[in-house]
């Protein structure tokens, strides 16, 4: 109680200083987009409706911000903005590996830019920043959590969150829950254990760490591994920002694939708690329940897709739900208080599973594990979907996901008894991509909109009866969430590379989306 009281007083003080009141993190985003998913639920649904089906053709480009064109942006070949920006008090904050920008949310003008001097690490992408009070937090590829002052981008401190020598790297957008800065780790090159941490917002000190794989025989989950050595090198990286239910006080952490990635001969068993959705207490890091999306994965199908929280009715019973369209091609609905599985269904046609077990987890077909002479598998390594965020629209009751139906051949390269690292891989492929609209009550696909030319973007739904997505030709497209019909589009010259966001300032609703190294601000200016 004392803690809560102190926290509320602290919140009021933070509010007074013009930073982000953490209480806003729990509310539907309107004039802010204060966290990676807009709010804690991961729905990426906005209650704003000034931009709507009837006026979408009046939506106009308001501004453009080219990150690489900016001084110090790196120059030459651009990175890609895969971050979802956060918007607080009229300023957008977004990241690329080693870089954070603040730009005016009304005009796209740069407020400040911060560049980190890197010591290496995989620069594949950065998903964004977290904000607490007057402070911003982001992860660097070389394993640091950096805290900046919101107003001028000056560094306050940085703290190590992983060991670069073990080929870990940072890419996740930190999650702010009460006085916890939750950070995850990335990396699938060497065989290391995944974990998720909580840090003190003021000092950056470690509050707790939870390993996604058991650390000694006898621990929960160790029965699903052959040895301590295997599980302590068993992977399960925490690439993606969790979601949070304040009432249940649980964060929902999606975990990565087991390691060694493709060649799993030396890790027989389900390999808990990799490729799972795990509920943790954010104050202690203690596990509440788990559900495994891909037992004994051998296809690089992590389960690091957003666990989306919403309330619904299943079989006449009202429930608090969590739903995930997982990389392995399955859509799962669980009771988010208990982890009990309520629905498991393929959202794209797949060929690797023998059905689901009593707990709702898929049963992998051993014949479709990677083989020396190759096994034709669908989906491919890219998965039925990947990290780009899905959306749930409470007005239609549909869960939308950028999906892919693709084939490739999975090979074992290292036939030894103890393959390590990448002792295999997949190769080649053919596929097609689409938006799938899934009825959460049954897991059935209600409608499907196939893209002509590929495309896999983050999604956003709004009360304006609009679903925003990117196709493979550089178009930002507004679809009718009821049936998938395209209503509006604008070509950005490069495919959408993040999840679109929306917010309202001074009575104007904005829509912001990244394509390549450029951020585009659309608005209803009339």
């Amino acid at each position: 109680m004392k803690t809560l009281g102190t926290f509320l007083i602290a919140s009021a003080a933070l509010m007074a200083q013009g930073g982000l009141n953490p209480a806003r993190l729990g509310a539907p985003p309107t004039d802010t987009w204060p966290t990676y998913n807009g709010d804690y639920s991961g729905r990426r649904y906005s209650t704003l409706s000034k931009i709507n089906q009837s006026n979408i053709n009046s939506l106009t480009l308001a501004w453009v911000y080219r990150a690489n064109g900016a001084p110090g942006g790196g120059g030459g070949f651009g990175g890609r903005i895969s971050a979802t920006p956060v918007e607080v008090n009229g300023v957008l904050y977004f990241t690329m590996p080693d870089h954070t920008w603040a730009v005016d949310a009304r005009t796209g003008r740069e407020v400040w830019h911060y560049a980190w001097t890197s010591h290496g690490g995989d620069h594949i992408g950065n998903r964004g920043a977290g904000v607490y009070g007057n402070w911003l937090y982001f992860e660097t590829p070389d394993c640091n959590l950096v805290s900046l002052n919101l107003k001028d981008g000056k560094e306050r401190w940085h703290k190590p969150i992983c060991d670069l020598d073990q080929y870990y790297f940072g890419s996740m957008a930190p999650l702010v829950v009460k006085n916890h800065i939750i950070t995850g780790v990335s990396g699938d090159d060497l065989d290391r254990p995944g974990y998720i941490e909580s840090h003190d917002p003021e000092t950056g000190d470690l509050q707790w760490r939870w390993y996604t794989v058991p650390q000694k025989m006898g621990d929960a989950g160790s029965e699903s591994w052959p040895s301590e050595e295997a599980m302590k090198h068993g992977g399960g990286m925490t690439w993606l920002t969790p979601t949070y239910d304040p009432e249940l006080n649980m964060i929902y952490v999606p975990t990565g694939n087991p390691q060694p990635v493709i060649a799993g001969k030396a890790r027989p068993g389900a390999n808990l708690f990799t490729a799972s959705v795990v509920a943790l207490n954010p104050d202690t890091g203690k596990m509440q329940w788990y559900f495994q999306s891909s037992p004994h994965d051998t296809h690089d199908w992590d389960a690091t897709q957003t666990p989306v929280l919403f309330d619904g009715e299943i079989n006449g019973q009202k429930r608090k739900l969590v739903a995930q369209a997982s990389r392995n091609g399955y859509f799962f609905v669980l009771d988010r208080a208990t982890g009990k599985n309520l629905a498991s269904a393929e959202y794209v046609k797949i060929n690797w599973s023998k059905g689901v077990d009593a707990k709702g987890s898929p049963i992998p077909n051993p014949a479709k594990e990677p083989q020396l002479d190759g096994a034709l598998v669908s989906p491919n390594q890219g998965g039925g979907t990947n990290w780009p965020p899905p959306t749930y629209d409470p007005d239609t009751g549909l869960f939308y996901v950028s999906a892919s139906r693709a084939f490739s051949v999975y090979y074992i390269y290292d036939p030894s008894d103890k393959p390590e690292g990448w002792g295999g891989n997949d190769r080649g492929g053919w596929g097609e991509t689409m938006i799938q609209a899934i009825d959460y009550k049954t897991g059935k696909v209600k409608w499907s909109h196939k893209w002509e030319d590929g495309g896999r973007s983050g999604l956003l739904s709004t009360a304006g009866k609009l679903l925003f997505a990117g196709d493979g030709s550089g178009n930002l497209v507004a679809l009718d969430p009821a049936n998938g019909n395209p209503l509006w589009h604008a070509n950005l010259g490069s495919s959408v590379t993040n999840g679109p966001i929306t917010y309202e300032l001074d009575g104007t609703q904005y829509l912001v989306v990244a394509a390549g190294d450029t951020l585009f601000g659309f608005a209803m200016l009339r």
Partner: protein
Amino acid sequence: MRYGIFVAALLVAPAVGVAQPPAGASEALEKVCGACHSVETVTGQRRTRAEWQESINAMVARGAEGTDAEFALILDYLTTQYGPTAAPAAPAAGRGGRGPAFSPGPADKQVVDEAAANRGRKVYAAECITCHGTHARGSERGADLVRSEIVLHDRYGSTLGPFLKKGHPTQTTPAAQLTGAQIVDLSHTIHQEVYNTLRAALQIQNVVTGDPQAGAAYFNGAGKCSTCHSAAGDMAHIASRMDAPELQQRFLFPGGRGGGRGRGGAATAAKPVMVTVTPASSAAIAGSAITGTLVHIDDFNVALRDGAGEYHSFKRTPALKVVKSDPAQAHHELLDQYTDRNIHDIVAYLETMK
């Protein structure tokens, strides 16, 4: 004024002898590769053509999307600009800079000296192999060195040396017997074993495991391959034009880039997707269907190049009829029908066509 800028640009073009990037290549790299990761991830590395091909194959497998032409451009570009002899990746200019290394792991990671690693292998065989195993992956008697944090923190013997000098629990001979040079050599050997577990370190082993007669039966029967192909015609000597992994990839994914270690150039290019567009009867070019090679299609526009090489572009409306024709459609449909047994049998059959 605009003209002046153009002339100036010509004047500052690099001198003859500097490998020029192919036109449009950097744009293709940005479009295809930049869609999923920063391009520095690629340009921070130095690889041979074969290694770049392998990287591209791996990326296609992970979902990279582009046309054949784009992938060919990217391969040429990476080979000419980022080959083994290219200048080391330089830190980009600008405030703070981005640092030189964009590949996985630390920027100051140990660079393995092949000769030292070979010398170290002899030390390893004499002193370490009994407990730590052939590839340093450990045994019941000794730890896995590839996964050892002492090894991963080591640079040229910096942590390995002190550790060995101190002596470790099961060491039977005094560690001091290893010279400083031997420890450095050993460090190269063990780091090499670590790097051998990274992506693209290994290759496909053997895909010729099927029954050629069953493959022939499938080719002429259920697979209906003989509808378009014949052993004596277009498929003649196909196995001498590409290796077995490429054969397997080619019939599964024609037009794909999964070509394994192909011998280059000789393989037939995939036929392009064709499209026929029929404008509405009220349009200016009423009713006259235009057929050509598909250049671009999305939900809103379609573009093609006709037989005379003319480019045509259309806005897609309900009245505009668009019919795509993919010559590889039958191959795509087979993906839902093949068993892995069928696939291995076909490879074995194609391998007989030397």
